[in-house]
């Protein structure tokens, strides 16, 4: 309950934050919402020598520009939850964000913070990977763009370089014919997930699947894009049988890491159950978006 001592500075721009990180050395850390970092500091799992508060480095902007949702890295979970723009263009973000922690955590937590933290059970990376999103970063060597799928490496480890900060997230929006569905399974609402699934399914007018994007999270040590394993669905109607077959294969191959919430074999099986449900949900969502059919999973 008592974080180790640290120095505290504020950054008023991304560039200033990068500069301060260089000055303050290896053990310095940025803080945005702090909802992942501060508990770790309080429980002595983390002890940064300095915190650079980036809360004032940018606005919390949410914009849509030519088929892309552009989010400042400082956009908070609560902003996503209440944004009509997000609900219209990347509805799965609105869906997923409601599973994060509790109302207070969503009030402070940011999308950039969630991505930089590298928690395998996090909701937003699954959705963003399914959408093929990317992040813009600024570091000592300048700017870069990284696909969200290339960010997480393993638990709490990402491909961000020393001193590099996520400044912006760009998400291709849901397009004509697509439907999406996010499922989180947790022992208790708001707790760390046992299984996360994000699915985007494209259907033609006869409800035949023409494309599928599928991400499985919280099972292994990072969210995994398993879209390839779901390609068997293309050309078929997603029904109970087809979704279960694909899901079973994905579950069988999934790398499952130990968790205090449930055993490995149970979580593997649940991955299969929830993948199938998410596929059917996304398919039904596609139909609903086209013709106003109520979604039932």
């Amino acid at each position, binding site marked *: 309950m008592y974080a180790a001592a*640290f*120095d*505290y500075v504020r950054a008023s721009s991304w560039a200033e934050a990068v500069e301060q990180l260089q000055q303050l050395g290896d053990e310095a850390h940025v803080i945005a919402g*702090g909802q992942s970092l501060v508990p770790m500091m309080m429980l002595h799992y983390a002890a940064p020598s300095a915190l650079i*508060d980036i809360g004032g480095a940018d606005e919390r902007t949410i914009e849509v520009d030519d088929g892309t949702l552009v989010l400042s890295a400082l956009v908070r979970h609560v902003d996503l939850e209440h944004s009509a723009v997000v609900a219209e263009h990347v509805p799965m973000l609105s869906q997923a964000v409601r599973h994060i922690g509790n109302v207070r955590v969503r009030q402070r937590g940011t999308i950039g913070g969630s991505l930089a933290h590298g928690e395998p059970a996090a909701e937003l990376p699954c959705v963003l990977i399914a959408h093929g999103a990317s992040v813009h970063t600024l570091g000592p060597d300048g700017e870069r763009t990284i696909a969200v799928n290339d960010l997480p490496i393993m638990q709490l480890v990402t491909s961000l370089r020393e001193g590099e900060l996520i400044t912006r997230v760009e998400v291709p929006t849901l397009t004509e014919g697509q439907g999406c569905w996010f499922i989180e399974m947790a022992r208790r609402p708001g707790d760390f997930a046992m299984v996360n699934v994000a699915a985007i399914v494209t259907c033609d007018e006869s409800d035949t699947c023409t494309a599928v994007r599928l991400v499985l999270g919280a099972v292994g040590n990072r969210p995994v894009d398993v879209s390839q394993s779901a390609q068997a669905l293309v050309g078929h109607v997603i029904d109970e049988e087809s979704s279960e077959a694909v899901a079973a294969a994905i579950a069988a191959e999934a790398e499952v890491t130990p968790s205090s919430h449930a055993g490995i074999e149970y979580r593997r099986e649940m991955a299969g159950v929830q993948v199938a449900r998410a596929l059917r949900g996304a398919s039904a969502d596609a139909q609903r978006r086209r013709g106003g059919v109520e979604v039932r999973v």
Partner: protein
Amino acid sequence: MTATRGHFISVTINGRPTDIGVRPNLSLLEMLRDDAGCPEVKLGCGEGVCGTCTVLLDGEPVNACLVFAVQTNGCEITTVRGLAGDGELHDLQNAFLDHAGSQCGFCTPGMLLVTKWYLDRHPEADREELRHAIAGNLCRCTGYTKILDALEAYRDLRLEDGHGD
């Protein structure tokens, strides 16, 4: 342990401007309890799980245990004692009394602040929405049923009084 630089911050607590010196690793919770005379803000878990330490920071609910005091410079902080005037009870507090929404009372300050904030934004919230709204505030005494009764009574009272716009 290395010495780190202290900071002076200016905050407004329940409408009262306060200047206070803080070390960076002082949580908002500790600052409020130990340095700002607000023992009504309770420590429950220190992990951000239980909601017991909820305060409103610029009108929005936060876990005071997961915010460093130094981060709140310039902010307005509302604790449960800021809900109503001195010596008065807010209608929501009276609803908790009438419906026995409080037993041991330890979760009550956080519960009141979250629900006040939520019902201000969703004045017509139904029982299921209210159940979701308090899902991050743990209570070990009531089983939540009487808390929900109190919230519905308060909601109805406000709607009758025309505050439900």
